[in-house]
């Protein structure tokens, strides 16, 4: 994670230095050791989209988390300064059996929901039962993530035991998912769909109001189980659905930050107009855009055509220009560059589509097209009608393919029509996207599984070799062996060229310098509980 030279000294009050294995941490002591904080005040921040409901279990948009996360807790969460390490949230400590088949969590005592009821292990069990086996009428968008959980036991009110059906090497990270907020069992028993419209959590803030289209407000939870937190008296998340309005609000001081991310041009405007008053934090992002071929359609059922088109793309050169005008920046394989499982650059450049000798690469691409009888290939590139960064990505691809004699019609449409086209298999080639909250490959690689297993595989490919490599890596306990399986998966995927990351995104977050304690991470879905944020006014 890179902090620019314009970044001011960040307050790190309440730094939570927890590692794996579960430590019993005294939060009062932590706040006493951290730099002096100023308690009180209300934080206004911008939210660039409005979620349809309050239930993160049923959502995949960051808007739900930016709106709801301050009201809830999770069992574990990511330790942002040490990402991807995890730390306890509701879990005071935890143990993992050596065979990874049992996870035992000890909960903090005396945790209260907003309605005054006490959290017990039954609430955690009810929540995870809802996640893995949602009742009729309830959606759990990450249901498949919990398929390996065999049973959940609650031997006492403060202990939850997860027994696995099979080893899942990423399970501890999934327990730290920001989407797995804990609900009250009685609320779920009364109405399993109630979290959509009702907020009753154990988080640092309690719900005050939500004015549709305008803002959501919360106030300090006086019964929050982490003594000394939160620092703020309250917050207001203001919906600013257009970038111009958001930038004006940041510049005018009406909001102290926007926590998703802005473009380079927007960053430059804020820096130019606000000077030392603005802090800019930058990081690589757990998002990418993909080039995705419809393998059910000729000539994209021919691996030579697919490979040729991927080899024609100058990612290394293109990233320099695109990073100046868009949020696209990093060249990487199936895993976020710089993360623990990412392929080192020395190996990456040997894979199809990642050579730094673009001239040679394009000559080979032309040969492949000629072999396949597609010298004068014409194709339609489907893309989302979003300026950032889909439009520059589409224009970039049009230019790259033009250089090997391919004519491209670039079609951009609204999300609905775009998804409909791809789901119906009516696309030739599409720019697809991958939106992850963590680096672990259990999430990131699932997109490339056979279409019969992965609904988000828009290339419609079926590849048993890839499926087996994925399954093997999910069960592999040894980290180095797991990495080797990921390497093999990536190699196979790129050789078959069904789909391939174009570039990974770059996250730029602006905050006023008086805003302290907020922590940057590679995912805009993380760190939104705001318990250790304060205002240095």
């Amino acid at each position, binding site marked *: 994670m890179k902090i620019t030279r314009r970044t001011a000294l960040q307050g790190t009050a309440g730094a939570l230095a927890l590692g794996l294995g579960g430590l019993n941490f005294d939060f009062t002591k932590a706040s006493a050791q951290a730099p002096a904080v100023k308690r009180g005040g209300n934080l206004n921040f911008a939210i660039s989209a*409005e979620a349809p409901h309050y239930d993160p279990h049923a*959502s995949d948009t960051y808007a739900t988390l930016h709106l709801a996360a301050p009201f809830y807790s999770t069992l574990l969460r990511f330790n942002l300064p040490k990402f991807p390490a995890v730390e306890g949230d509701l879990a005071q400590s935890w143990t993992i059996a050596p065979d990874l088949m049992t996870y035992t969590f000890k909960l903090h005592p005396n945790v209260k929901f907003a309605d005054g009821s006490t959290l017990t292990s039954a609430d955690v069990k009810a929540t995870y039962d809802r996640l893995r086996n949602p009742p009729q009428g309830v959606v759990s968008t990450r249901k498949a993530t919990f398929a390996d959980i065999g049973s959940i036991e609650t031997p006492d009110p403060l202990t939850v035991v997860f027994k696995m059906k099979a080893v899942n090497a990423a399970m501890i990270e999934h327990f730290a998912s920001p989407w797995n907020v804990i609900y009250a069992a009685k609320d779920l028993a009364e109405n399993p769909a109630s979290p959509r419209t009702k907020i009753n959590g154990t988080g640092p803030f309690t719900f005050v109001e939500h*004015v549709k289209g305008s803002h959501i407000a919360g106030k300090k939870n006086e019964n929050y189980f982490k003594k000394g937190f939160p620092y703020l008296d309250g917050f207001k998340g203001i919906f600013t659905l257009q970038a111009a309005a958001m930038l*004006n609000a940041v510049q005018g001081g009406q909001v102290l930050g926007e926590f998703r991310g802005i473009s380079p041009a927007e960053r430059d405007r804020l820096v130019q107009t606000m000077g030392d008053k603005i802090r800019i934090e930058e990081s690589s992002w757990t998002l990418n855009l993909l080039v995705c071929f419809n393998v059910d359609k000729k000539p994209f059922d021919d691996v030579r055509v697919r490979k040729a088109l991927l080899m024609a793309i100058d990612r290394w050169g293109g990233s320099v220009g695109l990073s100046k005008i868009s949020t696209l920046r990093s060249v990487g394989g199936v895993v976020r560059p710089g993360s623990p499982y990412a392929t080192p650059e020395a190996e990456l450049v040997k894979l199809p589509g990642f050579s730094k000798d673009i001239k040679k690469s394009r000559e080979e691409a032309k040969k492949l097209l000629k072999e396949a009888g597609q010298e004068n290939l014409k194709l339609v590139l489907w893309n989302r009608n979003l300026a950032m960064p889909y439009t520059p990505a589409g224009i970039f691809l049009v230019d790259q393919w033009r250089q090997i004699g391919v004519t491209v019609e670039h079609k951009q449409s*609204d999300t609905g*029509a775009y*998804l409909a086209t791809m789901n119906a298999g009516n696309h030739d080639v599409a720019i697809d996207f991958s939106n992850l909250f963590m680096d672990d490959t259990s999430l990131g690689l699932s997109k490339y599984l056979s279409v019969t297993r992965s609904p988000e595989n828009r290339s419609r490919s079926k590849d048993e070799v890839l499926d087996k490599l994925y399954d093997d890596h999910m069960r592999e306990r040894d980290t180095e062996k797991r990495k080797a399986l990921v390497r093999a998966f990536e190699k196979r995927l790129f050789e078959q060229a069904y789909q391939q990351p174009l570039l990974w995104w770059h996250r730029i977050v602006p905050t006023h310098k008086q805003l302290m304690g907020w922590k940057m991470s590679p995912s805009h879905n993380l760190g939104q509980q705001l318990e250790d944020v304060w205002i240095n006014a």
Partner: protein
Amino acid sequence: MLRYTINRVLLMIPTLLGVAVLVFFLLRVVPGDIVEIKLRGDGGSVTQETIDMERKRLGLDRPLLTQFGDWMVGMATLDFGNSMWTERPVVTEISGRLELSLQVAIMATIIAVLLAIPMGTMAALFRDSWIDYTVRLLTIGGLSIPSFWFGMLIMLTLLALFNWLPPITFTPIYVDPIANLTQLIWPALAVGYRYCAVVARMIRSSLLEVMNEDYIRTARAKGVYERLVISRHALRNALLPAITVIGLEFTFLIGGLVVTEQVFNLNGIGQLFVQSVSRNDFTLIQGMVMLIAAFYVLVNLAIDLLYAVFDPRIRYNT
């Protein structure tokens, strides 16, 4: 007159019925699925089974005619159904935004009318003088400059010169009039400028025409004060076309200020419209289209009735 009014009100029913049929079936032709957008729009990985379950829960799996029938029956009882995106009643979604949009429209209309009438009148009376040229210059500016761009200019000027912006969240006028007016005066000005330009030019043109009429010459020949010639005879006739324009512009402001609302971050009907279209939220789109159609029809009726007030020659016979 009463019979005419009743006939016009009754005619509203087939008009709105036609709009309802059109909007319902045209929306179903547009590609895209709200369930897909909701569950997969941000990269979610849900099974087709889940998608189908959600579609069933929202009633999207039912035959089109059944959906249409249910909607029409609901409309008859002023129940426009629930938004497919938020699952809150359409009426609740719209009413929360209508207050703001209505207030901006009213404020813009007041600004426009208060400025346009004297400007247009002076320009006509002092034709080809510096007054006329100034007014024409200003009105050409109003017609040429998009109101959203003018709005952006206002915001950036406030920021650059005063380091200040209007409040970003809406406060009803009955709760805090100062905060309310501080927020809404700027979009009202941005929109009102163009509105004023249209009306002022209309008044200038029709006043110039009216001033050449025989009855004006007769009034002057009879020795009527010039002030009364203008106010009682000329302006009264010249305002008739302007009333039509004012009415149509007002109705447009209710749902048409999409970009201006975005510039000022206003939680209005225009923004709601765009969001619901991008999400394929059929029920909400249908509700808003019907609302705006009803507005247009009612405003047209009001204009026609107002004509009779201004022009006693007009009698509506059935």
